[in-house]
């Protein structure tokens, strides 16, 4: 009985505290970012705007590091159709594209029709019929609850139109929070990529580690010590149903989903040393991949699912290796720095992202897998858990900032940097979701 009271109390608390905790704070911008103007969307209804779409799109495009949206107070006149645009004026201001739109209420309360246009200033300024300045025009409907998501979708459309790459603004982050004075100090949470709409997935009195997204973005695999040992669980983030999938003696760790979502690469030390295994999720059958007397850990799948990369101390210090799952031929990938750990390959197969250690400084680095060239992207001391955005343009990781563990972003080219500070606790073990199909 007492238990029940406890639980309902916590549930209540949870519903009231789920709000944006992480906030993107840009610490290093890019000079050459593309100038774009997002004109505040015109609200055609009565009363206050349902959600400020333009603010969300501005924040999205800015945090990609590729765009430099014009501050709202510098935007000359608020026009909402292409006909009223003074292209000469915009061109003089150095703006290359303009996004404008309107939000119209429908007969149903809380339902809106959103129309937007992306306009090419350079073409418009030429004022020739063969160059249509209208790059795209879209219309969609969204409810009050969907409108933030709809705004991220607009950002995706603009990003793709102007860069040729898919935008990653409709994605989630999963991360672990440690909150000292909470009765459940270890918490697995997810939020939108920008820290908004934070949800609690699991809280525990014992450590939780290594969250990993399934390729469809519906499940998280993670390690929990709730039974006084490490065990691997899979949890559906929409239904909260969870399944214990690995509870062998000693280490059960570092789960990584295969690209087809049917297998997990995991680390088990049941046979003595930490070794890489592949676990078939449906049958629970195990295939052992590594076999030696050193540490093998941190498996991660190549995008084609045909090989695994992992960290091994077989050469002395930890370095990153790649094993072909058919031939079992293993090759070493990293040669620079004292050691390299926690590797993963970008979806296009071009970049190996990792933690590189030099004189006890742990920093995020990226290695071009074709040329072999390696670049260190960060300058801090305790960077870890790098996770690549599904479009490969950004890396999120955890770092120490003002004596706390916080999340941070760096673009894969190293030019753009941001931190995501929080109001309480330590944030770590971050994992960027795949593209969401919602």
């Amino acid at each position: 009985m007492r238990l029940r009271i406890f639980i309902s109390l916590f549930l209540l608390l949870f519903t009231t505290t789920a709000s944006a905790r992480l906030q993107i704070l840009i610490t290093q911008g890019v000079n050459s970012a593309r100038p774009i103007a997002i004109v505040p969307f015109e609200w055609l209804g009565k009363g206050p705007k349902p959600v400020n779409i333009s603010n969300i799109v501005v924040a999205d495009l800015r945090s990609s590091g590729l765009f430099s949206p014009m501050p709202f107070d510098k935007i000359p006149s608020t026009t909402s159709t292409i006909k009223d645009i003074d292209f000469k004026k915009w061109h003089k201001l150095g703006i290359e594209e303009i996004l404008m739109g309107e939000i119209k209420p429908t007969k149903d309360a809380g339902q809106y029709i959103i129309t937007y246009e992306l306009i090419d200033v350079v073409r418009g300024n030429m004022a020739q019929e063969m160059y249509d300045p209208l790059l795209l025009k879209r219309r969609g409907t969204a409810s009050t609850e969907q409108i933030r998501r709809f705004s991220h979708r607009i950002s995706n459309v603009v990003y793709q139109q102007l860069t040729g790459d898919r935008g990653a603004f409709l994605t989630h982050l999963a991360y672990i929070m440690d909150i000292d004075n909470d009765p459940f100090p270890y918490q697995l949470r997810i939020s939108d990529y920008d820290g908004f709409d934070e949800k609690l997935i699991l809280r525990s009195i014992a450590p939780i580690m290594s969250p990993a997204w399934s390729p469809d973005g519906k499940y998280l695999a993670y390690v929990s010590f709730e039974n006084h040992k490490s065990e691997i669980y899979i949890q559906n983030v929409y239904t909260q149903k969870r399944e214990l999938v690995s509870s062998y003696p000693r280490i059960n760790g570092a789960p990584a989903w295969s690209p087809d979502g049917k297998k997990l690469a995991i680390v088990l030390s049941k046979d003595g040393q930490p070794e890489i295994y592949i676990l078939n999720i449906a049958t629970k059958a195990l295939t052992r991949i590594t076999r030696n007397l050193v540490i093998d850990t941190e498996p991660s799948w190549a995008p084609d699912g045909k090989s695994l990369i992992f960290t091994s101390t077989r050469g002395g210090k930890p370095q990153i290796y790649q094993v072909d799952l058919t031939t079992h031929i293993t090759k070493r990938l990293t040669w620079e720095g004292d050691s390299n750990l926690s590797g993963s390959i970008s979806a296009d197969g071009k970049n190996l992202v990792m933690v590189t250690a030099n004189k006890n400084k742990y920093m995020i680095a990226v290695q071009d897998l074709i040329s072999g060239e390696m670049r260190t992207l960060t300058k801090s001391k305790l960077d870890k858990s790098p996770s690549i955005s599904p479009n490969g343009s950004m890396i999120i990781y955890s770092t120490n900032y003002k004596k706390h563990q916080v999340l941070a972003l760096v673009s894969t080219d190293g030019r753009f940097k941001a931190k995501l500070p929080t109001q309480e606790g330590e944030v770590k073990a971050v994992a960027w979701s795949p593209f969401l199909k919602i």
Partner: protein
Amino acid sequence: MKASIVLKTLLITLPILFLGACSTTADSDASKKAESTQKKSENNVETGKLGSSKLSKEEKVKKYGDAILNSTVWFNFDDATIAPKYIKSLKAHAKELVDNPKMKITVQGYTDEQGTPEYNVALSERRAKAVSKYLRSNGVGSNQIKLVSYGEEKPLNKGHTKAAHAQNRRAKIVKRI
């Protein structure tokens, strides 16, 4: 005491979409856990009655020396070698475990925050194993020892200084009831 047991075993998953629908699941999970805890604590009382291994702290010190009071071994960075100064304590624990074959322990391994969480789990296991290996070479049965590797989780000192790091690189012997 009871409340702390309840707290310690309480672990609930929270719904992402339907709070109401899921609270029942969380309820039932937690009560199941509470039941099993109660059964366990009844067992604890019974084993207590046998009393074979229940020496007071003073009696223990008399039998195994002061060294038995230390149950933690500290390590150098990225290393799992037991320094000679811990041998006396480990020998005392080994003797107690040999004297009480029913006594069971967990050796918990830990690292500092340097490195990556998953690599640190592996490193902390090497530390726990080093302690376990030493105890077994002194006659302790392998069935008496369990290993748990926490890596950089649960630091003794949450600071980020070199001193804090040194404090956190450890393996600890914990009695299992």
